């Protein structure tokens, strides 16, 4: 919230009738100063690991192993990015983008359909099915990872993008989110559509969806970051470098070569991996807030 610019503070000799604002007492001003200081300190401490990683990404291996460490940026940034790229991380960025986009599209589509069914239809078994969907909200993949891995091998889906995308396609969060959203839309809209002779699918795609882009954006933003940051599942199910995801690439970048870890390259790899989700986050910050406040995220 941006506060409107107010009149200047009163000078010591003035009274407030001249249109100025009364001077806040000294304690209040000290308090505000203390809050600013505390916030700046907090922001800095939160950012230090990433700032140090950025500095690290600009240094050569020799510079990284100097003691005391060099705390100013070096000139090897481009070189480190090139090394990380050549290690296969460029390809992995592409893979991750493809998989995350696929997961987001699939999730949004399936959630819209399911949410629509729950709000605009009456049918036997509705409550049971809703329960079956909702109860999955909090079940992390890890508690069935052994048998899911097994299943992927039997379906001949080991080491494929399908294995990375399919298990994430259904979303309790998304279904819940769209159910809430559709419920908030006035009944008159569907009644009017029916009077005009629009069937359910036409109503969904031509009337409902065009006024729901905010909710779609909210879900897409949260889910993109979630899919982008997957680590354990691709680590297990993908066995060749050319199909691997970027997060596992970080682990590869940290593997020491001849006993010496290439910190500059590893930090360049880390920056490569965090820039796309950070970009999405800053671009869609409002949608993130909405996505969080509407549904209980998982």
């Amino acid at each position, binding site marked *: *919230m941006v506060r409107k610019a107010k009149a200047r503070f009163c000078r010591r000799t003035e009274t407030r009738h001249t249109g100025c604002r009364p001077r806040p007492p000294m304690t209040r001003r000290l308090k*505000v100063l203390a*809050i*600013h200081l505390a*916030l700046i300190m907090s922001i800095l401490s939160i950012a230090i*690991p990433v700032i*140090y*990683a950025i500095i690290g990404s600009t240094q050569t291996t020799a510079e990284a192993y100097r*003691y005391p*460490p060099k705390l100013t940026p070096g000139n090897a940034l481009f070189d480190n990015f090139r090394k990380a790229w050549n290690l296969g991380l460029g390809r992995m960025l592409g893979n991750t983008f493809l998989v995350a986009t696929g997961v987001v599209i699939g999730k949004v589509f*399936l959630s819209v*359909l*399911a949410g629509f*069914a729950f709000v*605009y*239809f009456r*049918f036997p078994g509705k409550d049971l099915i809703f329960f*079956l969907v909702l*109860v999955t909200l*909090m*079940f*992390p993949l*890890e*508690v*069935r*990872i052994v*048998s*899911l*891995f*097994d*299943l992927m091998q039997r379906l001949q889906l080991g080491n494929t993008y399908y294995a990375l995308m*399919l298990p994430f*396609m*259904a979303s309790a969060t998304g*279904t819940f989110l769209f159910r809430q959203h559709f419920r908030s839309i006035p009944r008159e809209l569907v009644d009017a559509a029916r009077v005009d002779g629009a069937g*359910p*699918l036409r109503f969904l795609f031509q009337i409902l969806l065009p006024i729901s882009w905010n909710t779609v954006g909210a879900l897409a933003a949260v889910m993109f*970051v979630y899919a982008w*940051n997957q*680590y*354990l599942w691709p680590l297990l199910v993908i066995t060749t470098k050319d199909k691997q995801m970027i*997060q*596992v690439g*970080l*682990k590869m*970048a*940290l593997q020491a070569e001849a006993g010496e870890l290439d910190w500059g390259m*590893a*930090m360049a790899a880390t920056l490569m*991996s*965090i820039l796309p*989700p*950070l970009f*999405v986050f*800053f671009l869609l910050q409002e949608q*993130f*807030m909405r996505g*969080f406040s509407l549904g*209980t*995220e998982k």
Partner: protein
Amino acid sequence: MYKNKLLPYLLLLPALTVLILFLYYPQVEVFILSLHRVALLGVRKVFVGFANYQKIFSSPKYYHSLEITLIFVAAVVLIGLAVSLGLAVLANQKIRGARFYRTALIWPYALSPAAAGTVWFFLFTPVAGLVNYVLDSTIGIRPDWFGDKVLALALVTGAAIWKNLGYNVIFYLAALQNVPKELLEAAQVDGAGAFRRFWKVTFPLLGPTTFFLLTMNMIYAFFETFPIIDIMTRGGPGEATNTLIYNLYRDAFRFFKTGVASAQSVILFLFVLILTFLQFRTVERRVHYGA
């Protein structure tokens, strides 16, 4: 309401197919696997009843893993929530640049646990790291973060807390903005100081959010911190950071003990089930509050 008979089922079919095939079916199968001794990558299965569970509960290694996991989870959840609440209260003050401060506090949410692991690894690494350099030049100590058992656990705990701060601050900020101003003003008129106003008015109103974050952070600490541990310590030194999820991963995919690993999955599943149950009960309460 539309009245088609078949269409609602067709609309739900894709989501249900995915849920049944990739969620419900494997969840049942992992339970069945936990009752078997599995050899040769699933080719041969022998029914052994609850032998896998007996094996787990008679293993000191598992109890050790359980113990450090509980310490780890408690620290991540309690310290994480306390710090986040403090940051959210600070960022909720009416001051210039509040928007900037909020963004600057919550951006780590977008980072992956793996990236959190790599940057903390670099920060604490013995030669190149900033932390040991600062400690060495100020008070002359250079702790062995990755060789000392207690320090290693503290280190992954710190990284795990740091990574989830943004997520928690987002929720606390939203909840703080929903605290009715009239209540706080009424308390002020009654002579309650800022501290009392916070503990007696604001904090109780944050209850549902705190409980929600408590469960989400527990799930996070139990499961989603795997990459941090895999990148920074791989469960070591010794078994010092071998949390339950890391132990499960090693048993299943390093030592190929499918049956025992499945039994561990079922134990974790039961734990999540209890949490889910508690969570749903508060969701209902939240409806009562009309929030």
